[in-house]
């Protein structure tokens, strides 16, 4: 394998693994703000214990998020040096803003959140929780802005030629509010809320099935269900907005998402299918006629540009984008169904009476995780063969000083270390879940008692 494939594989593995954790932190952050806010309002120690339990889970996801996040920040330079030279002027400022505005906020107040229970008053502690949650969202803002610029570059001009060409910023706000950043940011953030909410729902449903921590579990599920309902419905809207944006700004990606090969009006919307890229056909597919055209323009006569209208070397891989996209959409609808059903049964007063529903809740934690991953695969693979859409090809962005042997070594090591890290994460998460929240109302701090 050559340096390009290896570097892409390494980036894909490291980012996919990293992206398990920040969404959980962002989602749990919101959840903790709600529960601690309820503690401040009601003064009921129960909510404090509840917050404390989720803080422990949060700290675990945050730690791995930071450790794997540093890798991402350095990897642009190690494996994508030519890309870094090309985009540094534009992309770098978003990254630096993330560091200054988000990371310091998050990590500083995280100290108070985790270790400050006895050091500061309840209001100051709540403020810290709020700042950590805000910090994690700021971080999402800047990184999604930077990524969106790679999808829909704006506010720049190209200076220099050949290997010395680079993008220089001309308008900071046009860069920040490039055509896709707002839609994609909202879409990503709601995905994070779903990841956090369904983790809570899953753990709490498990307690109910085991007949443990009943009040804690019921209360957690109710709060998380509200979050899940809001986020999953919002996802429908932001998803639609994003798709319309893709149709306008990255037509080749949209064509791959729905396997549109020839330009057409009345383009169909597939529910599922299998794309044969050689014959340019979708097998075993079921489609709603004209629906794609209708959705992107509210008119069945809207013309959708097909892949054949693009030079062959400017088309993304079709089937992988198609499958990733359809899986994401399918999961999106499942999450809406689960949230609506949950809230409906809550309203009827039978939410906790159906064991089958609790089992669905337990396994539902996987759904947003899968959707987040395949959503990003759609976005990033759909952008290929470009690393910066229309400006620089992925194959042109590599580090010239790095050999395949070096990337083999780092790729293998990252894979092994991340597998180990994942096993460790699951082990410790399970441990904390088995240990459960502290039941007693007031637990004095014990010296010599390990953080469990």
């Amino acid at each position, binding site marked *: 394998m050559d340096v390009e494939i290896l570097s892409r594989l390494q980036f894909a593995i490291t980012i996919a693994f990293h992206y398990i954790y920040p969404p959980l932190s962002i989602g749990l952050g919101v959840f903790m703000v709600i529960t601690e806010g309820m503690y401040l309002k009601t003064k009921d120690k129960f909510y404090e214990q509840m917050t404390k339990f989720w803080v422990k889970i949060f700290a675990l996801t945050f*730690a*791995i998020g930071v*450790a794997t*996040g*540093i890798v991402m*920040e*350095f990897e*642009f*330079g*190690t494996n994508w*040096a*030519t890309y*870094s*030279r090309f985009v*540094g*002027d534009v*992309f*770098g*400022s978003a*990254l*630096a*803003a*993330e*560091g200054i*505005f988000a*990371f*310091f*906020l998050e*990590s500083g107040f995280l*100290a108070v959140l*985790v*270790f*400050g*229970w006895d*050091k500061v008053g309840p209001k100051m502690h709540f403020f810290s929780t709020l700042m950590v949650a805000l910090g994690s969202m700021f971080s999402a803002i800047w990184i999604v802005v930077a990524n969106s610029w790679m999808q829909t570059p704006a506010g720049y001009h190209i*200076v220099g030629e050949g290997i010395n060409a*680079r993008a*220089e*910023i*001309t308008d*900071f706000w046009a860069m920040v509010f490039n055509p896709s950043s707002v839609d994609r940011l909202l879409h990503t953030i709601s995905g994070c809320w779903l990841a956090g909410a369904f983790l809570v729902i899953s753990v709490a449903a498990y307690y109910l099935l085991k007949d443990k921590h009943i009040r804690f579990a019921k209360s957690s599920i109710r709060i998380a269900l509200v979050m899940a309902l809001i986020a999953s419905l919002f996802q429908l809207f932001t998803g639609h907005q994003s798709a319309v944006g893709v149709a306008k700004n990255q037509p080749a990606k949209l064509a791959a998402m729905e396997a549109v090969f020839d330009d057409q009006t009345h383009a169909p919307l597939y529910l599922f299918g299998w794309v044969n890229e050689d014959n340019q056909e979708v097998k075993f597919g079921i489609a709603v006629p004209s629906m794609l055209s209708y959705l992107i323009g509210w008119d069945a006569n809207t013309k959708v540009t097909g892949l054949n209208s693009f030079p062959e070397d400017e088309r993304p891989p079709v089937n992988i984008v198609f499958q990733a996209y359809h899986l994401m959409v399918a999961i999106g609808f499942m999450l809406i169904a689960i949230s609506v059903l949950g809230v409906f049964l809550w309203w009827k007063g039978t939410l906790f009476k159906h064991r089958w529903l609790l089992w669905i809740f337990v396994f539902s934690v996987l759904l947003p995780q899968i959707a987040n991953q395949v959503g990003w695969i759609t976005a990033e693979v759909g952008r290929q063969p470009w690393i910066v859409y229309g400006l620089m090809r992925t194959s042109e962005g590599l*580090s010239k*000083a*790095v050999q395949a042997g*070096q990337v083999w*070594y*780092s790729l293998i090591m990252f894979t092994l270390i991340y597998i180990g*890290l994942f096993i*460790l994460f699951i082990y*410790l998460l399970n*441990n904390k879940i088995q240990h459960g929240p502290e039941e007693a109302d007031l*637990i004095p*701090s*014990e*010296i*010599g*008692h*390990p*953080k*469990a």
Partner: protein
Amino acid sequence: MEFNLDLNTIWFILIGLLLTGYAILDGFDLGIGALHLLVKEDIDRRIMLNSIGPVWDGNEVWLVTGGGALFAAFPHVYATVFSGFYNAIIMLLFMLIFRAVAIEFRSKRPMKWWRQMWDIAFSVASILIAFLMGVALGNIITGIPLDANKEYVGTFWTMINPYTVLVGVTTVALFMMHGSIYGVLKTENELNLKLKGWVNNTIIFFVICYVTTTMATLIYFPNMAKHFKDFPPLFILALLNMLAIANIPREIHHGREFMAFLSSAASIASLLALFAVGIFPNIVLSNPNPEYSLTIYNAASSQKTLTIMLIIAAIGFPFVLAYTISIYWIFRGKVKLTNMSY
């Protein structure tokens, strides 16, 4: 060399400040890590770990932000150094991961083998991180082979030579000294006495390394002294550096540990300032072809980006300083283990 306080120079100074902040803050927690295995009792190891518990990842953020700022202000330096030092950077990343994971997971299970395993990971990673960073600084002084396209043309072994290893060891020694002083501030009773003893040993270790490195630099890399020769008032920096170091044992002797810590922080800051003055206006010296060096001008982003970032920094930094100071204030005093501790 004419000195202008233009945007490029300002960003050279600001990134220097970020990395100085990093070295002072993460320096003591890496130092605590380097000393960790010398502490034998589990409870004492937990106290060591919890002395840095609430602050270590905030300290690491200085490195992350420094990296981001380097990417934004001097993208060519970021690209050349990170891709050129590929193996070393990847190793550094693995060590940062191991260290973070070790801190986080060590005390989560009671088994002896589990804790011993993470203790070793924590300590070895802390030492290697300090060492690799020192080696990187050493390479900036010796210069590295670059071509006309700003690409590194050496190998991993080009980076390793007696001088760069010496700078690496000096960095470890510096952080051990800095860490042991911090440890004295945060501990009580026997562990405190033990750490006080180590302060003396690590000061001696550091001073030996410091003198050797200084001599080696002046003999083999006289370029580093060029600006001092051209503009003698800069010599005050060198003097301050020596005074700061000499002041550490004095403050310890008088039992003013916090002053000793500030003194140690001042030595780190002045050492890095000497280094920065020495390399200016190069950021990465090219050796053997100095005309290919990356300077604060040929490696920089556009004036527009440097201006935007200056605005971002001006808005962000007061906040950063405010939370950093308040966090350290909230967690001041001796370590007390609670059920939320590591």
